[in-house]
């Protein structure tokens, strides 16, 4: 079977896992586990005071922007790689066509 078929199945499975997470928890806020980790600490040791604060904390909108920046840097590199492979493999495909 064509490998693209398996890729499609894989992507469908990923989408299903993520969508089912949303369908199974209607109205959930999907709070981050990092924060819930902090809440657990609060339960275990209510007197605990963080002894150091972040030097700088972005507001909600800025945080979104900077997370996007992080994603974009990575995605750019991956996209460049895939694109350059396409270019690289092109001549050999043309040769195969001639044979």
């Amino acid at each position: 079977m064509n490998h693209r078929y398996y890729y499609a199945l894989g992507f469908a499975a990923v989408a299903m896992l993520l969508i089912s997470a949303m369908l199974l928890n209607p109205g959930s806020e999907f709070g981050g586990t990092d924060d819930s980790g902090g809440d657990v600490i609060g339960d275990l040791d209510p007197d605990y005071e963080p002894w150091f604060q972040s030097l700088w904390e972005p507001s909600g909108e800025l945080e979104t922007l900077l997370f996007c920046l992080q994603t974009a840097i990575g995605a750019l590199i991956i996209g460049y790689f895939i694109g350059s492979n396409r270019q690289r493999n092109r001549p050999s495909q043309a040769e195969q066509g001639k044979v």
Partner: protein
Amino acid sequence: MHIMEGYLDIIWCLLWAALSIPFLVYGFYSIKRIIKDDPGQKTVLALSGAFIFVLSSLKLPSVTGSSSHPTGTGFSTMFYGVGVTSVLALIVLVFQALLLAHGGLTTLGANVFSMGIAGPFIAYMAFKAMTKAGVATPVKVFITVMLADLATYVMTSIQLALAFGPFTESLTDFLAVFAVTQIPLGIVEGILFAIFVDYLERARPDLTEKVLLRKRRVAVEP
């Protein structure tokens, strides 16, 4: 897996940093050596870092109703092992600590240890064992990547349980938050990398040959 800034007592911060430093030093020199021996590897190194950047920036929803970051460290682990992965994880974690207030500078050592060392270490052991046993590549990639992700969060739970004992009870509490949420996300990450590595084997067998111990395929396209 980010332990928040200021949430670990200084003694633990120092301990995890001290444990991480040898791996980071080794990883740093490995990267220098890899690039010197084979400049072509720069591409795969960049790719390894890029995956960690992308995946650790995403907060994915889990069936538990909370959301969490995948780690993306499995790819680098398969290609370069624990040392290099710890350096790449450090770069991402510094970015997130300084610009996003995710994790922190005081907890950097602990976070590098879980994401860059413990997770990749477990995954690398499994990868080697599966390679020896001749497990098919997509399955091998899936399991390695999933383990790198899950083991990271188990390590975070252990770190927090050690700092906020009693150990056994609080470990259960932390695992309930971190590890359970992570299971579906580990599966998602595993599938994505199984696809990508399969693509890589087809498109650039020269890059995967050494790692996956496979001979070049000779036109198996249907």
